């Protein structure tokens, strides 16, 4: 299908984007990578009066490490592929590379943006889960100037965030891990590049005695927003990990989830997968905290099963659009 008509504004700055959005009174949408928005326009699930294209806006295409702050700031026009290629970012926040490698396919990652993914707020997507796991912030520009929305206040429900439609997200701010911290992300999807049936991310910081100083655990694909396992995180604090610690934590976290079943997976299956994934990412995060970031590849079922990529498998989803010519 084709998009309904809209006006197009290519803006040169974040301020111009904000002013343009304000003029349309919330009836305009920001166009960054467009890899989720444009399909919705084609299917006419959204019909904005205008698109505000921020791809050439000054200063939004940067990855910055502000001095004296342990954060990375990723601009709203930075693409997934840019993050994946960014050597310093890969070294300082490797979980981002691990998670974004699971987003779509190469052509999608060449256009799509981490900030756009956060603002789109698909609860099955990787980037919102990473923002929630790390306790990051969305930096926005509104009528009163720049302000920040923390992750736990940002995601309201499916595809809905606390960002007012007149304001523009200019960046995400992600805390960099402190020493003796390990992080990991893994997911199970129907085929490589699809949205996760369930995904899980973990961050584990150890104290000098090898006890858990802080553990964090997040899921995607099991609720209307990314779901942090706050209770299990609290239970893990101070624990000296032993055999079974991570499996028990994964099971306890999954027990508290209330995933919905759909055509792809039942609720029971999602809960089972969540338990296993949680155990796996917690264990990998722990090993990395102890041994350094190179330890313990997180082999998800997709990664472990060499036959899971679609090339060579006849499981292509049905495309109702057909193949006209």
């Amino acid at each position, binding site marked *: 299908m084709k998009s309904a*008509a809209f006006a197009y504004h290519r803006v040169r700055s974040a301020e111009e984007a904000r002013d343009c959005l304000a003029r349309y009174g919330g009836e305009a949408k920001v166009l960054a990578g*467009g890899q989720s928005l444009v*399909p919705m326009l084609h299917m006419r699930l959204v019909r904005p009066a205008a698109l505000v294209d921020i791809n050439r806006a000054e200063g939004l295409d940067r990855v910055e490490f502000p001095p004296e702050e342990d954060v990375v700031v990723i601009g709203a026009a930075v693409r997934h592929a840019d993050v994946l290629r960014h050597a310093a970012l890969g070294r300082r926040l490797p979980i981002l590379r691990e998670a974004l490698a699971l987003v779509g396919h190469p052509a999608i990652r060449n256009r799509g943006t981490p900030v756009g993914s956060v603002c789109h707020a698909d609860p099955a997507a990787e980037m919102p889960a990473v923002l929630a796991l790390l306790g990051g912030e969305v930096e926005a520009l509104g009528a009163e100037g720049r302000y920040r929305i923390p992750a736990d206040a940002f995601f309201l429900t499916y595809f809905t965030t606390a960002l007012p439609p007149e304001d523009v997200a200019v960046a995400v701010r992600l805390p960099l891990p402190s020493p003796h911290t390990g992080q990991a992300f893994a997911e199970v999807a129907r085929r490589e590049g699809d949205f996760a049936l369930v995904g899980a991310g973990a961050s584990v910081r150890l104290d000098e005695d090898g006890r858990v100083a802080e553990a964090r655990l997040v899921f995607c694909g099991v609720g209307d927003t990314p779901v942090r396992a706050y209770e299990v995180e609290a239970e893990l604090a101070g624990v000296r990990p032993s055999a079974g610690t991570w499996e028990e934590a994964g099971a306890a976290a999954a027990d508290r989830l209330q995933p919905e079943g759909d055509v792809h997976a039942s609720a029971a299956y999602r809960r089972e997968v969540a338990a296993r994934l949680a155990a796996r990412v917690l264990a990998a995060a722990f090993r990395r905290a102890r041994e350094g970031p190179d330890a313990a590849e997180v082999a998800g079922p997709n990664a472990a099963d060499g036959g899971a990529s679609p090339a060579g498998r006849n499981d292509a989803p049905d495309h109702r659009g057909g193949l006209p010519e």
Partner: protein
Amino acid sequence: MSEAAVRPEEALYEVDVVVNGVRYVRQVEARTTLADFLREELGLTGTHIGCEQGACGACTVLLDGRSARSCLVYAVQADGADVVTVEGLGALAPRARRVTLDDGREVELHPLQEVFQAHHALQCGYCTPGFLIAAFEFLRDNPRPTEAEVRAALSGNLCRCTGYQNIVDAVLDAARRLAEEGAGPA
């Protein structure tokens, strides 16, 4: 909302774009996708349109040197850009082979196109342009891939004839041939 004075469906936007080395300047509606622009405005029908939602990969082109779904980019966004479609792939080869088509036209074939032919890596051919562009970018970035890497790189392209095994074989063969020639795909 002063912009609404001109109804959006009546507004036209200039696109000044280089496609396969040729510059074109056209006026388009904002909602015209790059895929439709290439096919209908420029007559470059090698770029195919399958799902129009980014799932199938048939419309994949190079946009400023990187693969992109031309159905998920509006033509107006390509203003000022450099686009390569399957018709321009041969010109990117270090040593392209000239062949004469049934209709008498002479074209240059990229080695990838030759190996797709040699390995029977296309059946109906609908998905082929997208696979070729995706494979081109992949081999440019990773000239000595493993089979698993090839499969992962092509996972964004669907073939409804299910010719995947031959496509994977063709891309691996292309990598070998290009390595022997001592040149990457570009």
